[in-house]
């Protein structure tokens, strides 16, 4: 058999024998960023469409999770930095070629804006809440008056935020598993799906629950379609990408990927949502939890497996 045997004395921690520099922090952030993108997207969408009454949970209650998810995600990102005290260097430059740079700037915009969004609904949910200062009341009134333009801005930012979580990985041509342009739309869809599932879970309104169950079902179908496309792309691509796909098709990530991501994270919740549509009583928490779990597992597995794929050696 023709083969190449490589020997090297190099044994750098985190780099050899294969990269293992990004651990749970990056996938956790990718998950929370996608979740936040999904929550913002649907809240803004229903404000833009003028159908606030159709999605009260999406617009009001669920929007309180958004800043929380973003802050925890940002915390994970910060925790992952090896040169932490220099993090402010992200904000001394704009580098359009680097997805991480425009992602950092998007986060700087979207995090405070998501806090403003939920704060503007606070008095509706907690009527006794007092803002203490007059300028805060004035600011709240201004935000309420400009809900539509605010929602347009947020929906635009949410798509950037959601798609960036995938593009961040797909921009690395050195890691063949990540280096596919379908990863952006795939991560965006997955993020929207986790957002829809969370809204479905939280909603007390029967009609809204049903609505987001349907939306989530559609997103799950699109996600499965994208995953099939991703594998078709890999298998008809260069050798390194075929090897990347083989990690999931008989290789070491086969069992976790197909069990946790495809079956438990997509097929089972999709099936439960279909049953619910047909009139069976399914507690929304079950499919919602599975979608969230699958979303997190998907990112953990992609980040872990991607670092194993390479060109050399």
């Amino acid at each position, binding site marked *: 058999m023709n083969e190449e045997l*490589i020997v090297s*004395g190099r044994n750098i921690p985190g*780099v050899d024998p294969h990269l293992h520099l990004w651990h749970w922090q990056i996938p956790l952030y990718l998950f929370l960023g996608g979740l936040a993108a999904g929550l913002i997207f649907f809240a803004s969408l229903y404000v833009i469409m003028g159908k606030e009454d159709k999605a009260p949970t999406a617009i009001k209650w669920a929007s309180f999770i958004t800043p929380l998810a973003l802050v925890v995600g940002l915390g994970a990102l910060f925790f992952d930095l090896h*040169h932490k005290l*220099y*993090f402010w260097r992200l904000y001394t430059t704009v580098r359009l070629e680097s997805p991480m*740079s425009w992602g950092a700037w998007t986060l700087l915009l979207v995090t405070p804006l998501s806090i403003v969004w939920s704060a503007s609904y606070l008095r509706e949910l907690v009527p006794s809440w007092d803002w203490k200062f007059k300028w805060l009341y004035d600011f709240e009134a201004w935000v309420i008056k400009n809900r539509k333009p605010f929602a347009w801005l947020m929906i635009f930012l949410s798509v950037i935020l959601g798609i960036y979580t995938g593009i961040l990985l797909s921009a690395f041509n050195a890691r063949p598993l990540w280096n596919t342009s379908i990863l952006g739309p795939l991560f965006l869809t997955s993020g929207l799906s986790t957002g829809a599932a969370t809204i479905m879970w939280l909603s007390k309104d029967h009609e809204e629950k049903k609505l987001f169950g349907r939306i989530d079902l559609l997103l799950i179908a699109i996600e499965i379609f994208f995953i099939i496309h991703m594998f078709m792309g890999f298998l008809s691509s260069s050798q390194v990408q075929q090897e990347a796909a083989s990690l999931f098709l008989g290789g070491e990530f086969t069992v976790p990927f197909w069990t946790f991501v495809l079956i438990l994270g997509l097929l089972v919740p999709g099936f439960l949502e279909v049953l619910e549509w047909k009139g069976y009583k399914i507690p929304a928490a079950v499919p919602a939890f599975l979608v969230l779990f699958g979303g997190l597992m998907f990112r953990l597995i992609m980040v872990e497996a991607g670092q194993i794929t390479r060109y*050399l050696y």
Partner: protein
Amino acid sequence: MRYAMAIDTKKCVGCSDCVVACQTENNVPMGFARDWIVESVAGTYPRVEMEIRSERCNHCEDAPCVRCCPTGASHIIEGGVVLVKHDACIGCMACIEACPYDARYPHPDGYVDKCTFCIHRVDKGEDPACVAVCPTHCLHFGDLDDPNSDVSKVVAERKWKVLAPEAGTKPQLYFLM
């Protein structure tokens, strides 16, 4: 100006002198490396061939590490040398993920570090430390734009290859075969 290095795989004996010289010259911490030796045995028995390579950053013309850096800490200076500004590096590791040659490493102090082609020596007219110490003279360094430079001559005369050209980064280490 286009700095490049040619590595004569027919002369390299894998003594690791280049590795030690680099670690001494550049204060590379224990357990890490800016350059390293790779021994590759390929073929079908009994027709097997061994190749020994002294490897380091390829100082790619289209460097993905520079492209993905969110702060501009990774940059290319005149002569095409890829460098990292330590006090602008946040240690996000994106450049290490982006390198098809795994040529960078996370320095224990937090920033990312890599081969500089010993630009501090080159600016004074000296050779990089690895080139200066190589006992078999298998390393050739210089300006590819200058047809009379050592590296231009060997690259013009000898058969060579670059590693993983399919990664599309236009690497500037030429392995003479």
